[in-house]
């Protein structure tokens, strides 16, 4: 299936070996669109790099800017005002709601449920309108900047957010009931894409995929990066280990996120929203790693500075990359767990794939063996900047 296929707008090749309707063996090739963003980041100043980092992924752009700004601020030792952290949390959770609603539409699409697809995308508009109200952009919000956030949320906007989200919450509760009760949706997802807890750990699954396999692993809890200690929420964990569990985790997270946003709007301290940062600054030599819970799972940014105004090395590990081995494992029939061709889109969709952020370059020699590069070797191949 692929690289062009209706289930996924991005170029992904799912190689399947089938016997009739049963999938025997599977592999995924996701390296069709390599954009070289990590390399490009080395040629931008830290402030310029933010705009590039935001465009790594369209849907998780807020997660990427949150991660980038926290990462660079940690490297350069910039103090961020408290209110900015609260506002970042609000926008991040709003983006999570938007992403999960989009995914609910994707799930509906892969099981052939046209109506739910339409409704999920309609309801996502609510969130996008709020995002526009807050940040000015509907999808690529451009809200986080190094040192804080770009705009404040005033009382009128806060009221609007709360009333819109209250309506959205009712609908999401309805969709959760639908997932729990609809016989056909259950028939298509329960037991499909089984990933046992031990396998999830072994294959390093992250985010909702891990949490649906009973692993309570959420960066917001395990390694809080904004003001998560002060905002009450419960990580959603299911132990059904299947596509249905992943759907329930995501829908549950929408409701949790709505609760977090409302709480944060009520309890955010007042004050400055942004520390002034010069457009070009030189952080001291060193390195920094930041982890953020993106809608799709753990997102990791690594930066290394050599004391110049541009990063020496910038590394991004997106959650989809972490979940691909798990997806490949789920696609293979094992024992009495038969994977049908009809299950393939459901399984692949259940990891919420986002491929363009994931593509990697593989350097192979003429015999086809892959070569690994160490950072020093990469540095030796670096052209003059």
């Amino acid at each position, binding site marked *: 299936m692929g690289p062009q*296929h*209706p*289930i996924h707008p991005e170029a992904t090749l799912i190689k399947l070996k089938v016997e*009739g*309707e049963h999938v025997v063996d599977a592999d995924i090739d996701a390296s069709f669109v390599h954009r070289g963003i990590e390399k490009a980041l080395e040629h931008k100043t830290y402030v310029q790099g933010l705009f590039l980092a935001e465009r790594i992924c369209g849907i998780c752009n807020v997660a990427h800017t949150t991660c980038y700004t926290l990462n660079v601020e940690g490297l350069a030792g910039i103090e961020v005002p408290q209110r900015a952290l609260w506002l970042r949390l609000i926008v991040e959770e709003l983006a999570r709601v938007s992403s999960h609603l989009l995914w609910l539409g994707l799930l509906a699409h892969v099981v*052939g449920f046209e109506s739910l697809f*339409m409704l999920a995308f309609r309801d996502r508009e609510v969130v996008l309108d709020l995002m526009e109200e807050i940040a000015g952009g509907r999808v690529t919000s451009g809200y986080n900047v190094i040192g804080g956030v770009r705009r404040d949320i005033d009382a009128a906007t806060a009221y609007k957010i709360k009333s819109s989200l209250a309506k959205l919450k009712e609908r999401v509760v309805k969709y959760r009931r639908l997932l729990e009760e609809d016989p*056909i949706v259950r*028939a298509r997802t329960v037991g499909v894409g089984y990933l046992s807890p031990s396998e999830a750990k072994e294959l390093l699954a992250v985010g909702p995929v891990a949490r649906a396999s009973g692993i309570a692993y959420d960066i917001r809890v395990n390694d809080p990066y904004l003001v998560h200690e002060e905002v009450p929420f419960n990580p959603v964990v299911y132990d059904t280990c299947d596509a249905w569990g992943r759907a329930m985790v995501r829908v549950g997270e929408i409701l949790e996120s709505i609760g977090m946003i409302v709480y944060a709007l009520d309890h955010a301290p007042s004050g400055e929203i942004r520390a002034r940062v010069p457009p070009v600054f030189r952080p001291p030599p060193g390195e920094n790693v930041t982890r953020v819970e993106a809608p799709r799972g753990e997102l990791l940014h690594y930066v290394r500075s050599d004391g110049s105004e541009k990063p020496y090395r910038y590394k991004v590990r997106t959650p989809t990359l972490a979940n691909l081995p798990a997806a490949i494992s789920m696609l293979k029939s094992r024992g009495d767990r038969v994977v049908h061709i*009809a299950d393939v889109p459901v399984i692949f969709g259940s990891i919420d794939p986002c491929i363009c952020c994931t593509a990697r370059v593989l350097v192979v020699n003429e015999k086809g063996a892959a070569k690994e590069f160490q950072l020093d070797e990469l540095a030796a191949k670096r052209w003059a900047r």
Partner: protein
Amino acid sequence: MIAEALRAFVYPGIAYMVALALLLEWLDRKIVARLQNRVGPYYAGPHGLLQPLADLIKLLAKEDVVPLGADRILFTLSPIAAFVVVTVAAAFVPLASTSGLVSAEGDAVAVLALITIYLLLVYTAGAASPSRYSQVGAVRAAHMLLGFEIPLMLSCLGVLASAGSFRLSELAARGSVRVFGLHAVGFAIFLIAAQAELERLPFDIPEAEQEIVSGWLVEYSSWRLALFRLARDIELLLLSGLAVTLFLGGPVGPSPPGAEPLLYPLYFIAKAALIVFLFSLVRASTARIRLDQFVTFCWRYLVPTSFAYFALAVLVA
């Protein structure tokens, strides 16, 4: 002679059939769109009424491609044969008056046979194209046929047996509604099997866009695709027409004497629209089930129920 030709080709012949079929497609698209909070067909004609026709014309203007490695003869014959088969079958169904365009003793059996032939043509159409998606789709269509064919036949035969006639026009002329009591079961079975036959959600398994792109249809383009789409629309007319004839009393309704030629077509359209409305409701509220689940469902529930229904219908009659 001219009157004969007009009858065969214009009203109530092929042109009328095609127009009616496109109308039903429009109705289906519009209802589903409204249920999904969309607008649906809008631009072509009032309320988008001409959209299905516009789509057909657009398809005819497309480049005609026969993929390399396709069986050229089957690839060309399948769409033509499919169109001919459903059109001939629909000619037996009383659409505008109590009598079909053609009518003969035992024509109900002929219609049922033609429906099966259409499904075989779906298989050959898929098998004639070289694409893997088509092959999978064709095999899926054949598998499904094994599941819903018997219930479809038995639900029709039950009604025919209890009516004591195998002539569709005779059934239509009696105008008796059979959706209560025992025949409610037959009606339900017929509707379920008809949706599988039409490859509509939740039974659009052979096409399954998200899985096998368009299944057996994937390689067809231009006039071949247009013919298949038209055949699908006429099939919708045929099956809703069969349901109307067998269960809803045909085009018969209260009418002042002499006004039947004017009112009966309208009654037929209203009743067929009711059937299409039911189909649209189902399409808008379900997801697609898997092939193995469908076959299991058929053999565990649908086939035994249809046998029981048929036996009871024969006994009562």
